[in-house]
């Protein structure tokens, strides 16, 4: 997809990205943040992405595309933090396949920025069990003006 210019870059996000760094949590789909090629318009168009996938036999279904039995949701980078998650993604290995994955510090920042109990829980889960670079995390939170839930305790 990248080499065909359909997307500029990508990174696995959400609970499947958490899986690379922490304990497994329930999820039913695979989130992929994508950077789309720059265009003149202001409206995000995913049509070329879906066309590329359909041409390869991957069936779109509502907001997902079924790829080898897994519902995948392609999410265009919707703010600067998510864009940074893609451009600063880590290249990791799954069964000898290289995949780009959102770094754990970015996952925490996104979870806190998005809010909600489930995501807050995810942020704490990563903080407690994953190898988190606290300096990187603090820098990210400050860069994107995200209030850490623990900052009031300090």
């Amino acid at each position, binding site marked *: 997809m990248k080499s065909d210019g359909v997307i500029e870059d990508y990174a696995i996000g959400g609970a499947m990205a958490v899986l690379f760094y922490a304990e497994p949590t329930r999820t039913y789909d695979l989130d992929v943040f994508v950077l789309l090629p720059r265009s003149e318009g202001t409206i995000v168009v995913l049509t070329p992405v879906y066309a590329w996938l359909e041409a390869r036999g991957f069936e779109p279904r*509502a907001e997902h595309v079924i790829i080898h039995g897994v519902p995948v949701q392609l999410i265009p980078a919707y703010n600067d933090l998510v864009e940074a998650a893609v451009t600063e993604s880590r290249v990791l290995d799954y069964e000898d396949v290289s995949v780009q994955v959102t770094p754990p510090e970015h996952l925490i920042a996104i979870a806190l920025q998005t809010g909600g109990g489930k995501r807050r829980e995810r942020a704490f889960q990563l903080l407690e069990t994953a190898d988190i670079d606290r300096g990187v995390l603090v820098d990210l939170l400050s860069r994107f003006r995200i209030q850490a839930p623990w900052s009031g305790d300090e």
Partner: protein
Amino acid sequence: MSDRVRPTEDRIAALFRAKAEWHRLQARAPLREKVRILLELQRQDYPLLKRHRRLEWWEEPWIIEP
């Protein structure tokens, strides 16, 4: 106030340390093993969730191998 015998603070601290260690080990399990656990969680959850609400099509367990 209950007159039950309670574990000492040290014992409770040791239990929580062991629990935290177990979670850390789970977090460091090979990715393939984590995917296997995820698939198992999906399979276990499905009938329970289905009993409580109508599930979306994408909430079905994945029919894949880790």
